[in-house]
């Protein structure tokens, strides 16, 4: 404890450069955006103050609520897709299978490939005229299952979700794999001696042991889902007719395409607000369970 006390100043000065950069590029712009959100501004001519008008207009815009709904779809499908799938893959790879390094690399690959590539690949898979998905279904005689995956508005958002899950579940696999390998060998041995094997060991021993990691992964998955932009932008551009638009696309279209920087800033403030609410809710739930 004493040694730590002596170095507290040193720690502070060591972190200062990073802190300053973070404040400069993350904290200050948030307040600048907050300021702009009260103006009507095209970026070129003079700003005019409009008070809360931008927020009122956003709340009255059905497209915005559609984008919120789509964000929730991404969030929920992301949670129920990425976390269990990541855990399953991690459990499989933790069993010292032959070639597990190879599979680990393959599983992590989508995380490393740029989103542009991921979007283009899935765009080709989903194409209704020459795409892989429909060809595969046709091959198995499931012609009636063939769809216009990205164009049919009743399923397009779920098609996007699937690509999103594929892109990210490798990340959770690696996080869980690291946590699994940190479970002390004695615990597993003791479990084995007590006769806990297979699924029972997974649910009674392994998952409780990595509970804190799972909670972190859940929070990360949720906050990540609010940031999704590039995948949707390239896969569908938010279309057809706003049906796959998420909040970031909504904000981008207003701020940068239609040049309403005030309105776009207000939308970005709402993204921040919504993600803070959801993340703090999840954190609280997790803590209540801990106590």
């Amino acid at each position, binding site marked *: 404890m004493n040694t730590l006390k002596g170095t507290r100043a040193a720690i502070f000065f060591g972190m200062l450069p990073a802190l300053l950069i973070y404040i400069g590029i993350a904290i200050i712009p948030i307040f600048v955006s907050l300021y702009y959100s009260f103006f009507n501004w095209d970026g070129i001519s003079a700003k005019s103050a409009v008070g809360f008008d931008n927020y009122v207009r956003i709340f009255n815009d059905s497209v915005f609520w559609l984008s919120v709904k789509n964000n929730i779809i991404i969030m929920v499908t992301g949670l129920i897709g990425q976390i269990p799938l990541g855990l399953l893959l991690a459990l499989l790879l933790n069993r010292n299978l032959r070639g597990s390094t190879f599979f680990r690399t393959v599983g992590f690959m989508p995380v490393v490939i740029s989103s542009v590539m991921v979007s283009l690949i899935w765009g080709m898979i989903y194409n209704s005229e020459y795409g892989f998905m429909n060809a595969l279904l046709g091959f198995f005689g499931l012609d009636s299952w063939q769809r216009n995956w990205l164009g049919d508005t009743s399923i397009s958002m779920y098609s996007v979700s699937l690509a999103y899950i594929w892109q990210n579940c490798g990340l959770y696999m690696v996080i869980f794999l690291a946590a699994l390998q940190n479970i002390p060998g004695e615990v597993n041995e003791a479990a084995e001696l007590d006769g806990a094997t297979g699924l029972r060991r997974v649910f009674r021993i392994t998952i409780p042991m990595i509970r804190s990691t799972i909670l972190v992964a859940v929070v990360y998955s949720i906050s990540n889902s609010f940031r*999704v932009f590039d995948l949707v932008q390239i896969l569908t551009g938010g279309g057809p007719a706003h049906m796959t638009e998420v909040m970031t696309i909504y904000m981008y279209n207003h701020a940068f395409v239609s040049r309403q920087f005030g309105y776009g800033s207000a939308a970005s403030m709402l993204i921040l607000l919504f993600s803070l609410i959801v993340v703090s809710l999840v954190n609280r739930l997790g803590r209540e369970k801990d106590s």
Partner: protein
Amino acid sequence: MKKRNGIKGAALLSVATTLALATAACGNSNDANNGKGASSSDSGGKGTVTLTMMHPWTSPNADNEVYKARIAAFEAEHPNIKINQDGVAAAQYKTKLFTLAAGNNLADIDVVWPGADLDPLVSGDLLLPLNDQMANWNELVREDALAGFNKNGNQYAVPTKQNFVDIIYYNKEMFSKVGYDTFPATYEEWIDAIKKLKAAKLTPISLGNKEQWPLQSSYMSTLTQRFAGDDFLQNVVDGKAKFTDEDFVKAVAVIDELTKLDAFNSDANNMDSVQAQDYFIQEKAAMHITSATVNARIRIDNPNGSKFGIALFPSVPGGKGDPKKAAGVPQFGIAIKSGLSKEKQDAALEFMKYFVNEDLYKDLSKAGIMVPTKTNVAGEGEINPFLEELMKLTSNGSTRVFDSVIPTQPSKEFENGLQALTIKQGTPQDVAKKTQAALDALK
């Protein structure tokens, strides 16, 4: 002015940074910084001037090669001037241009569009008036083509090509298969042909509307003129007409009708315009409606080019517009950023005089691209017959392109409404109402 721009620059940068943080790293913010970096690190060797230039010449169109070759030729002849090019895909070009403009970070030389797209740049004093340089071009370039780049008596850019956005390319064999040896002259016949093509299990029209502009620009510019007359769009901007007027709703209803006939390929909203061209060139569809520029790709540079014909939208029942007119726009105006240092400004003007001259127009003509010149610069016999046919088709006057008259926000609203119609959502009346509301919100 200077100070305000500085503040604006910082402001935009922070908005961009917020975006980069809120979303995954977005291209715009990064590129904005790169652009800035490039223009400030201009001191190469002694006396070498480096200029930045942003252009949309990235797609496989014939004219893009000509433009890039011209830049290379300039650099070869002027070793003391270096052009740093920033090629941005056409669909994103305007977004990037205006984002950079908002941060006062424009490239030294920019490609700009006329009319409503030029207004914000002019109102922000971001472009250099070229009035005292116009002696170079007044003899060469048609006045009506220059007019779109002229605001309040100042000339801000010189166009390098003449485009028409609404050429219907059609597959002659497929049309004769359903009994049309010539392209249908009236709307009823056109719809009849579409029905027959559909019955023959052919895709009537290939459409790539993922980027949303094709329906707005290539379809609705002309359809608006055919139903509501030449001045309708300007009247709407001036408040003398409304999008909700019956004629305009009828024009929008065409998209609805085509959708209900299943006239488009099923993946129309997931394809970009180049992919839709490919469908057509590979004979997977009987028609494709797009700009005159693509004539080179579909017919001139294509060994099977003679399979394809060109036509304009047919006349419509009770229409107020002349069915011989096409929707034209002088495109790719070259402009120079205002407030450059003397040295850079001189270099930029030097570039512009070299780049936009008779030789460029000649090269473009030879490549099969229409140019906004007063005379045929390519000379007799140098013009490809396919280009000649196109020039003849479009020689009966032009009407204006939708988003060169209507400001960005209502245009975007309109594009979304049209896309909704293609997935059978909403009605033409809704689309008209929302577009009018978006226009009214600007006032």
